[in-house]
C-alpha cells in the first residue's frame, strides 16, 4: 500500500492501515519530540497523545493543503509545547556531561547524553523558542514549513530563532569557560 492509500484507508477507520502509519512514523516523530522534550518517558507520552489525536482527526486532513509529514509535525509539536508548558518540575541533569562537552572539542557524545545536553543548553529558552530552534536549526525545515507547523509569522520565527541561538550560545560559552 502507498502512503496515500494507507491514509485513505485509515480515514475510513481501518486500524491495520493506521498501525502501518504508526510503524512508519514512530521513529521519525520520536526524534522530533525528544529533541523538544529531552526526556524519554515524557516524549513517549507526548507521542502517544499525538497518534491518538492523529487517529481522531485524520478525517480532517487535507492532502491538498499540506504534506502528511507537515500535518504530523504540527500535531506533535503542539502536543510537545503543551507538555512543556504543563511541566511543573525541572528534570535534574548532571552538569558533568555539559562541562566535558564544552571544554573538550573532541568529546564524543553518547546517544544517551544528548537529552541532558539539549536540556541544559536550552534551559533558558521558552517553549516556542525551543520549538523554533529544533525545527529550523536541528530538523532544518524551511521557514514556510515552520510557519505552517507553529502558526507563527516569518518575522516571529526569525526573532525567536535569533533569541534561541543567542541563549544557547551563551549557555554553551558559560560551561566552556567554567
Amino acid at each position, binding site marked *: 500500500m502507498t502512503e496515500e492509500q494507507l491514509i485513505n484507508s485509515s480515514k475510513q477507520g481501518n*486500524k491495520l492501515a*493506521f*498501525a502501518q502509519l*504508526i*510503524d512508519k512514523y*514512530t*521513529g521519525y516523530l*520520536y*526524534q522530533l519530540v*525528544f*529533541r523538544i522534550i529531552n526526556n*524519554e518517558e515524557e*516524549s*513517549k507520552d507526548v*507521542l*502517544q497523545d499525538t*497518534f*491518538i489525536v492523529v*487517529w*481522531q482527526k485524520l478525517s480532517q486532513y487535507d492532502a491538498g493543503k499540506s504534506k502528511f509529514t507537515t500535518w504530523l509535525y504540527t500535531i506533535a509539536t503542539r502536543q510537545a509545547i503543551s507538555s512543556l508548558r504543563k511541566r511543573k518540575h525541572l528534570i535534574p541533569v548532571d552538569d558533568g556531561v555539559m562541562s566535558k*562537552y*564544552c571544554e573538550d*572539542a573532541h568529546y564524543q*557524545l553518547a*546517544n544517551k547524553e*544528548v537529552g541532558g*545536553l*539539549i536540556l541544559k*543548553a536550552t534551559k533558558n529558552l521558552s517553549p516556542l523558542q525551543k520549538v523554533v530552534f529544533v525545527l529550523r*536549526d*536541528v530538523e*532544518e525545515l524551511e521557514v514556510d514549513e515552520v510557519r505552517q507547523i507553529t502558526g507563527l509569522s516569518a518575522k516571529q520565527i526569525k526573532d525567536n530563532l535569533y533569541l534561541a*541561538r543567542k541563549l*544557547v*550560545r551563551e549557555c*554553551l*560559552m558559560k560551561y*566552556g569557560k567554567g
Partner: protein
Amino acid sequence: MEKDVYKRFVEDVKRTDLRMSNEDKFKQRLLQKINEPRNYSKRLIQVLRVAASIVLLLSLGTYIWMEVDTREQRWLVEQQINGNQLVQPSSGSCKQAVDKMMTLLASSESLPFSNKGVAFSKVHLKQIKSENAELFVMLERMLVYMEQFYPSDYAAFQSGETVQLTAWQLRKEYDVCNWITNN
C-alpha cells in the same frame, strides 16, 4: 570560537540517532488505546463542573437577594410601616402636576410665597374664596385630604396656624400625586 561550539552542538544533536527503547511495547500500548472506546469522562466532568458553578452562583445570588429582602422587610416591621405607606418616587407627570399646582398657588396674590414655599391659613382661605374660586375649590379639596391623612397638620390649620407648603412636601409628604390622580 563561540560559533564553533554552537555549530558543533547543533551538528552533534543532528547526528545523534535517537531511538525509542521498547518501541514494540509502545506501539502495542498505543494500538490498545486506539481500540478503546473514546473516553468522554473528562468532558463530562468539565460539563458537570460548569453546571455546578452555575448552580452555585445562582444559589448565592438568591441567598443574597433573600437576605437583602428579609432585612428590608424586618426594617419595615421595625418602623411600623407597611409597604403601601412607603413614599413612592415621584414620576415626571406627578412633578409636572405639582409644579402646575404650585404655580397656581404662587400666582395668587393672597397667599404669601417665599423660597420656603406657599403659606396659607384660615384668613388666607377666606380671601381666596372671594378672589379665586378655582383655587379655593382646590384648597378645600386638599384640606379634606389633609384632614383624612395628616390630622396633626389639619388641626394646626384649624387652630388658625399658617401651614407651609413646598413642592417637595406636596410630592412626598402629602402624596399629592395620588390625590391628583384619584380626584
